[in-house]
């Protein structure tokens, strides 16, 4: 707008005839006003649109929700996976994806318990069939998952692997820039 105002006096003095102001020598008034106004409007609207999207709480929450779901889904699969030939590696993987009490419990699994897991000769593989974020509140979230666990029994090599479908609910918490499982439990049947 300032541009337009400063141009005003110059053009009137330059106008050759007082009776028909500005028409032959300079563009009509509306053009001198409309172009800067349009540019300013495009600028303001564009910047506002960008700013409102960049600071939109719901948009950042949506990103977070998808991030939580991906992390938790992978972690729940990890927690349902164990190979008796690699118990130490399996337990390390469990420790890597957990935090808090759950993590401490896993860290306390002693040599006898490890041996027990190895002796069972089971290979479990967890696969999340479907999962969804139930709630999200800042740095904590609850994720539910339908998990298919395939168990192969190496003590009985002829046996078909068994399939189990389990319902899980996981509490996830953000530690640093990682989402970790704080709690993982089966959703038991409870009819009231």
């Amino acid at each position, binding site marked *: 707008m300032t*541009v337009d105002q400063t*141009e005003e006096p110059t053009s009137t003095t330059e106008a050759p005839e007082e009776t028909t102001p500005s028409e032959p020598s300079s563009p009509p008034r509306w053009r001198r006003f409309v172009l800067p106004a349009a540019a*300013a409007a495009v600028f303001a609207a*564009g910047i506002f649109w960008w*700013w409102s*999207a960049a600071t939109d709480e719901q948009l950042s*929450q*949506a990103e977070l929700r998808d991030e939580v779901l991906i992390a938790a889904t992978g972690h729940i699969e990890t927690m349902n996976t164990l190979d008796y030939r690699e118990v130490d590696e399996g337990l390390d993987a469990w420790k890597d994806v957990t935090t808090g009490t759950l993590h401490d419990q896993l860290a306390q699994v002693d040599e006898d318990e490890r041996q027990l897991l190895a002796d069972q000769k089971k290979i479990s593989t967890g696969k999340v069939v*479907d999962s969804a974020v139930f709630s999200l509140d800042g740095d904590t979230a609850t994720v539910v998952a339908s998990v298919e666990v395939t168990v192969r029994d190496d003590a009985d090599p002829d046996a078909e692997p068994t399939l189990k479908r389990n319902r899980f609910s996981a509490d996830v918490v953000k530690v640093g820039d990682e989402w970790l499982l704080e709690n993982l439990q089966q959703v038991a049947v409870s*009819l009231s």
Partner: protein
Amino acid sequence: MTSVRTRLSALRPYLVSALLVALTVVGLVGAWRGYELRSTPAAQNLAVVDTTATAEVQSEVSQALTRVLSYSYDDPEPTEQAADEVLSGQAREEYDTLFASLQERAPGQQLVLTAQVQTAAVKELTADTARLLVFLDQSSQRADDDEASVSAAQLAVEAERVDGAWKVTGLTPL
């Protein structure tokens, strides 16, 4: 000084044009960036982040499932009526087949089914479509059973909003 000033005033139209072009370009870039931020798949999905809409679809779908999956051999009417109200599309067709065979067996067995939703989590949500993961418990009691047998179901549910109300259009046991 005067010559500089005249030269500046000669340049002014160009400077003004350049400024206008710059303002327009920055504005357009801003609009584009804003559009990009809002059009990601994550941004289009209102599940969880729109708490009111999420709670609404959770509760309506839970109620719908509880009603159509509860059944009593001596009073099948409410179940049938619920199916008319809350089921639609493919879910309706599949349910009708199931219900027909249920109607045949139920009176002889004196079958009573009781359903209860444990958890309904919304995975995807737009203004009029939703996908949910539902954990549902169902007990079935027959005349010769000593006690009811209970099953833990996991359902992938699709829902659509029709005339302001959510209807279940897809029901897949996982």
